[in-house]
């Protein structure tokens, strides 16, 4: 239970995101997301024991229950209901996206070094920046509404990892509020995705381009 283990968890979580960038298979993406979130919950628990802060255990449990179990189950249910198992992607081939994500990982290391003012470990900070950037990359290179939601969740994980490793003692009520907002957001976005499938007979959000200035 050392700080190194926490760094390892953070980097492993970032690597999960990289694997997500390399696969267009939706269920596999959800699986990697689950894994990533479990790693984050684990990292939270480690940090809790390092600083002997009990509220971090609570947050770890809440993350495991809500983000690592409920959200993936909900997303898998949507995948099954909509019968859409893979994402066609935009232009760039998945292996290339994966490499881009690795490059972003390297970039974020230097980027964090250049900010370098927060107290936490710089390894975890660069892992969180990498999660954030990979999440954006996922949102940019994917077509389906579901992948967009997954990309958003990866961004959120990156932000959470930053908060957890670079600050101490975020108020519990704020953390819980954020968690609740994210949960509600995913539920609503999922329902909208259902509606999109129902009225357009596809969930390709790049084709949602009827509204524009003429």
């Amino acid at each position, binding site marked *: 239970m050392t700080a190194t283990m926490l760094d390892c968890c953070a980097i492993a979580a970032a690597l999960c995101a990289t694997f997500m960038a390399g696969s267009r298979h939706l269920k596999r993406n959800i699986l990697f997301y689950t894994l990533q979130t479990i790693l984050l919950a684990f990292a939270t628990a480690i940090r809790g024991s390092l600083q002997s802060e009990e509220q971090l255990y609570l947050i770890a449990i809440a993350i495991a229950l809500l983000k690592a179990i409920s959200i993936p189950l909900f997303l898998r249910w949507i995948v099954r209901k909509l019968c859409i198992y893979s994402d066609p992607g935009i232009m760039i081939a998945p292996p290339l996206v994966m490499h881009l994500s690795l490059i972003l990982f390297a970039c974020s290391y230097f980027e964090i070094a250049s*900010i370098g*003012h*927060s*107290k936490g470990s710089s390894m975890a900070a660069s892992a969180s920046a990498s999660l*954030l950037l990979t999440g954006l990359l996922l*949102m940019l290179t994917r077509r389906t*509404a579901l992948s*967009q939601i997954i990309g*958003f969740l990866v*961004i*959120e994980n990156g*932000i959470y990892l*930053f*908060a957890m490793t*670079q*600050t*101490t*003692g*975020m*108020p519990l*009520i*704020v953390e819980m*509020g*954020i968690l*609740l*907002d994210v949960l*509600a*957001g995913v539920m*609503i*976005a999922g329902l*909208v995705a259902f*509606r*999109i499938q129902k*009225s*357009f007979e596809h969930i390709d*959000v790049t084709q*949602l*381009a*009827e*509204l524009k*200035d*003429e």
Partner: protein
Amino acid sequence: MTNLILIVALPLLMAVLGFSAHKLPFFKQLIAFCAWYQIGIELFLFRALFTGKDSVHFVDGLVADRTGALFALLACFVVASALCHACVFFKNEGVDRHKSSRRNVGIFFGSSGLFLLAMTLLCICNNLGYLWICIEATTLVSAPLVFYSRDKHALEATWKYLIICSVGIAFALLGTIMIFASSQQQTEDGTLHLTELMARAGTLDYPLLRMGFILCFLGYGTKAGVFPIHSWLPDAHSEAPAPASAMLSGALLNCALLAIWRISQVVVAAGHPELALKLPLVFGTVTVAAASLFLVKQSGIKRLWAYSSIENVGLMLTAIGLGAAPLFFLQALNHSLAKVAAFLLAGNFVQACGSKKLSELKGLLILSPSWAILLALAAIAVTGAPPFGAFISELYMLTKSNEMDLCFVFVTLVVSLTIGFIAVCYHVSGCLWGKPAIASINANTSWLSILIPATLIFLALLLGVTPISKYIIEVF
């Protein structure tokens, strides 16, 4: 605690009524009535602020100051007006005939209650974490408002609104965490409380604070519709039903800007006004300029008002950048009054003519003179022409930028406001005159349908011709 229960009770009741009691014949009127009553409750709770006290305590992290209270009252007023008009609007839509549309209206009114709740809490937040939670909550609960008509266009607008705003606000969360981290550099315990952040502003770590402020600015700026991250705004405003557009434009944008203002206050207190003011100033001016150019080539009446909202967001940001909170509120007040009236009237016409396109809305003066005259007045009020209130606030803004030797801002504002004025007048007058494309209007043009817009325009006029504006600027 009692204060908190008092302020959340009615919005929650509105939500419950909307979601569960939509079979009640008069639930719409009941909810609208609740919204008006909420203004009374807020006035009662905030009364101490206007007699000299600096803050009203609700619970830890929820403390109303004068600016917050004024914005909360404004948001509540906008929601009450929009819901009041919505009763007439949905009746003309003929929603009572179908079971499914009655349910949709129920969801609309229920979400409005939650929307009001989120905005009210947002205005009285004294904690950056709660602020973020409230702003994200406003996005989530207003998505059903945009989605009201359940068609393809509404779906597209809702999706864009949800995703673009959520991602934008996610960056604001990162910014909030960075501000929290910046407060932890010199002491062990960090804080998100605004009063505490202001009190120990000198000890905040500047690089982290700067990053935090920029991220928050971009995040909340997405929500406010700042150029170039405004792309969700015209779609959502044009596809939502008119009362919802009015609420989004008249209340939500102000709230997002209030969040930016609050964080910029922290940065100013930390001794870096050059960042805290220059960023809003530059973005505000550019937004005004870009929006006025967009206004020139619009084909839909609601998109026209949406871009005009972006222009006004630019003006309010400029006011923040000039460091003038009273001006910011005054501009917000004027914009809300005029724009809510404009959206509601546009909704009346769209409903009656069955089209949003400016090319198909012709000869409105023949169709319904009272609506058409009010629409013309609303257009003049929105663009900031005398004798309406927006003229005064814009004049103050120009004087102030001139005093501060901000030549670039002054010239850009004058040119853009002129372009905006001409563009809006051109489009609206094109609708008023000419031969009507539709032979007869098929909606009831009773006095109820113009009651709220006429009152709002009258209030905007009062702000322009009486010394109320001056009073607000001085007393603030």
